[in-house]
């Protein structure tokens, strides 16, 4: 159901995250939709409250109070007796309430396939695209013994299982065997034992009857179209839709307070608006950007528990999403340390800190996830950890976002010597146009310069790449809002959500610190000119306002290249942003920091100073 501006003048949207519930107010003012106020409160899915709606009430109360202050009107009111007043009548009430959610662990799924790298991966892609965390992929050829697979299935307790396998009309044996293993394990759902575990079958249609015979009694079996009907084609839509339906019908119903929340999310005519898993909502937005602007996009949403990476690449706008379930800035912060190792975190820190002190700081953040760094030194450390969490999540994404594996390809002679194979990553940093950051540590960094630094250091963009950030973390809200008003979502997205930070220019190749790397001449708006021969291992920040363009002439030295065609010289328009244009000559492929500690710290300080990342007193 969609509504126009006459019916939607004031909307509350919340995102119930694993740590905080973020509420925003969207209003139709002077002929356009704007995001006007924001509030937040701790998410309340834990004892003693055990009810997600309390966090929604608290964050909405903050919205109400700030709205009264902003409009100097004490009569403004969105809720009464702990419930939203819909529709709005003057100062009282709102026209719609919508929400996304990743609280309570989000949507946790297990997927099965016959060949792990083929139908298994397609099933994983479908689950991830629907906003799930994939707990495990079990496939006929995954090298575990059958009894180990059964044990694993039994212990996982997912919210649902997605089963794929076999082309339509192909062999049924392997997919039926997998069903037998699932049946033998007799898996139980994560939340509550009062209902049967939903299992979606999206494999070879010839096997449906056998699958029914094997599974129908033990689980809640849902049959849908084969998600890999042919080796060369995926058909993920029907499976994704089923996942969404079941998420609403089963999973949400079981989480504390969600029954009530599902009653609350309604449009102006009191029609219900389904709650969307947060990553699905962000995925909607990323795909819209790519298609509207006809560009390649990488987006990241780093949360307390998980980090989601989204990408849209190639002329077909192939969308991929991965979720790194245990990389995040609060609940999972300790796992970032365990996965990346202490040395990788410390390489971004421009001062000395005792290992035990750092470990304890990280663990204290893990056990008290809602605290925020009030000391500068702690902020620097958290941002160093964020770079590693982002880097690791992106590595996982690059590996996953690949062309379909197992396809036959005809090659021409020009390809005979190239390394590209079926299943190669489609993430190409050289052709990437836009990198968008979202999530607390990026959206709420005290200085936007820090966001630029984190994005560049973690993702290592190559060639010319625009950088942007979700201003106050509202992409999930807009993703679900677009379901009832694409216009409101688009207008708010362009005016209030996307903050263009600037452009990064990073020549690719090796070099030696101090040797010539890049000649850059930038003709800036207003007639100013920046011109410099920048040595290797440097960063320059040239202010250029949002909406403005600098005419740049770029020439590289010593084998460095600037774009996918390996150009060493370019004349190009570089877009400004609230930070500006960053020229980064630290090299790519490889990107390496000085190994000697003193030298590394001295360079880090120099780059941080140039990027205006931190106050001077921590960089002396």
């Amino acid at each position: 159901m969609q509504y126009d501006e006459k019916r939607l003048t004031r909307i509350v949207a919340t995102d119930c995250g694993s740590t905080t519930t973020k509420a925003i107010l969207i209003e139709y003012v002077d002929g356009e939709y704007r995001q006007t106020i924001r509030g937040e409160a701790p998410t309340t899915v834990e004892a003693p409250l055990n009810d997600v709606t309390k966090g929604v009430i608290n964050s909405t109360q903050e919205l109400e109070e700030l709205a009264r202050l902003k409009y100097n009107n004490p009569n403004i009111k969105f809720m009464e007796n702990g419930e939203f007043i819909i529709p709005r009548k003057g100062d009282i009430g709102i026209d719609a309430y919508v929400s996304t959610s990743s609280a309570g662990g989000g949507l946790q799924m297990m997927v099965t396939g016959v060949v792990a790298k083929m139908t298994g991966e397609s099933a994983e892609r479908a689950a991830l695209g629907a906003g799930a965390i994939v707990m495990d992929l079990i496939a006929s050829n995954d090298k575990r013994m059958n009894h180990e697979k059964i044990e694993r299935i039994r212990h996982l307790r997912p919210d649902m299982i997605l089963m794929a396998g076999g082309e339509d009309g192909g062999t049924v044996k392997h997919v039926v065997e997998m069903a037998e293993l699932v049946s033998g394990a007799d898996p139980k759902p994560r939340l509550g034992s009062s209902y049967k575990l939903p299992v979606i079958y999206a494999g070879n249609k010839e096997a449906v009857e056998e699958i029914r015979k094997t599974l129908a009694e033990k689980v809640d079996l849902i049959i849908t179209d084969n998600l890999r009907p042919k080796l060369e084609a995926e058909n993920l839509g029907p499976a994704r839709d089923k996942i969404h339906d079941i998420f609403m019908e089963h999973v949400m119903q079981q989480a504390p307070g969600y029954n009530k929340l599902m009653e609350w999310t309604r449009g102006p005519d009191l029609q219900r608006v389904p709650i969307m898993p947060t990553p699905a909502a962000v995925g909607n937005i990323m795909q819209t950007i790519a298609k509207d602007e006809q560009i390649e996009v990488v987006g990241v949403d780093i949360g307390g528990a998980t980090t989601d990476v989204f990408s849209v690449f190639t002329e077909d706008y192939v969308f991929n999403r991965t979720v790194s379930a245990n990389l995040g800035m609060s609940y999972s912060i300790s796992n970032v340390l365990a996965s990346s190792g202490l040395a990788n975190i410390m390489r971004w820190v421009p001062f000395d800190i005792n290992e035990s002190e750092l470990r304890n700081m990280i663990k204290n953040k893990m056990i008290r996830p809602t605290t925020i760094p009030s000391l500068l030194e702690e902020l620097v450390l958290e941002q160093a950890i964020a770079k590693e969490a982002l880097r690791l999540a992106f590595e996982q994404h690059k590996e996953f976002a690949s062309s379909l594996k197992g396809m036959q390809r005809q090659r021409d002679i020009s390809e005979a010597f190239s390394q590209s194979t079926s299943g190669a990553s489609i993430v190409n940093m050289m052709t990437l146009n836009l990198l968008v950051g979202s999530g607390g540590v990026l959206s709420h960094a005290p200085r936007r310069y820090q966001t630029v630094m984190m994005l560049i250091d973690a993702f290592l963009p190559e060639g010319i790449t625009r950088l942007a950030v979700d201003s106050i973390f509202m992409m999930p809200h807009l993703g679900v809002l677009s379901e009832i008003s694409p216009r409101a979502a688009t207008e708010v997205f362009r005016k209030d959500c996307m903050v263009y930070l600037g452009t990064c220019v990073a020549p690719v190749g090796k070099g030696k610190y101090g040797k010539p790397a890049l000649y850059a001449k930038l003709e800036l708006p207003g007639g100013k000119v920046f011109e410099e021969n920048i040595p290797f291992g440097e960063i320059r920040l040239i202010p250029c306002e949002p909406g403005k363009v600098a005419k740049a002439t770029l020439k590289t030295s010593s084998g460095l290249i600037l774009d996918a065609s390996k150009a060493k010289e370019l004349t190009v328009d570089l877009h400004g942003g609230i930070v500006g244009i960053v020229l980064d000559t630290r090299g790519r492929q490889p990107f390496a920091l000085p190994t000697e500690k003193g030298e590394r710290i001295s360079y880090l300080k120099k780059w941080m100073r140039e990027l205006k990342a931190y106050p001077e007193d921590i960089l002396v």
Partner: protein
Amino acid sequence: MGQAYSAGLTVTESMVVRKERILPLKGKVLVTKGTKVKAEDVVAETLLPGKVIPFNLANKLGVTPTQLEKYIKIKAGDQITKKTILAENSGLFGLGFFKSEVRSPVEGEVENISAVTGQVLLREPRIPVQVRAFVDGIVTKVIPDEGVVIENKSAYIQGIFGIGDEITGELLMLAETPDDEIDAGKITEACRNKIIITGSFVPYHVIEIARKHGVKGIITGGIDDQDIKKLLGYDIGVAITGHENIGLTIVCTEGFGKITMAKKTFDLLKQFSGQKASVHGHTQIRAGVIRPEIIIPLDFNEDELISKEASMPILEIGTLIRIIRQPHFGTIAKVTALPEELTKVESETMVRILEAEFEDGTRIRIPRANVEVIES
């Protein structure tokens, strides 16, 4: 804004504790409503299904899955031993020459036979599981076939982080003051089977000595993460703990590092030193948060078992708070103001802050997110 919600840990000298003791699968409840139970009593038991062994019978017999039907000697639900013949063929020309048979590799039950894959699933014998009461109390509800609810009146302390499973034992206060760091020499044979309280910190070598003396549990203000890594042999990635098998249970009341135990927690533990407590280290910080608990049962009458409705700890002027992040980590202060506007702190983050006063009269401004309410 006059008040705001802030999460905190529960520390109270008396409350109604309600514990659900549920079987992992349906089974038999052994007690009835109204039964008085001790922590050690078994209240419910069940048989967990045994391990499933997939076994490709068609392959073993050298026939196709569809042919298997002719030779199979078992059906789903049959009890089997290692001698049971699962299938046999009739030999060459059906005359019994080169007859081959396949016997069960395990004891148990036939779960399923598939004519599509030729696979049979054999299930090993069931495994008995018992659930104990864990706390002294009274059975107030029986959930048929699933378990019970046990209630009592207890002094109750929620820890922030723990490792190790459920234990019961006598509390023994070894620390003199909340900021004490006990000497290893204080741990003697007198500590055997006790749950000791060590003050602000417990280092690795003290934990080792405690293990040697058969200490059941340690309650401490803080612990060093590196020591936990040494104890477990691995780094805790995601905080889901409680099933470690290190010979004792550890509960931290404050966090990582040396942190003075909250006075109220310390005073309660001191007051109840010598009494029986039920303690566990189960911690799960995500998706249905679980915190470690120290439950000290008190005498009670059944009519006292009325739990107060869960309320939100509220931050308002005069509220006592504990600071849970640097600077001033672990210290107590009283809220003096809750300014509405966002304020810049040292890290330049714009946050909602509160103003508070320490006992000595000095004042601070601190992010609201970095405090917890001490419930009075």
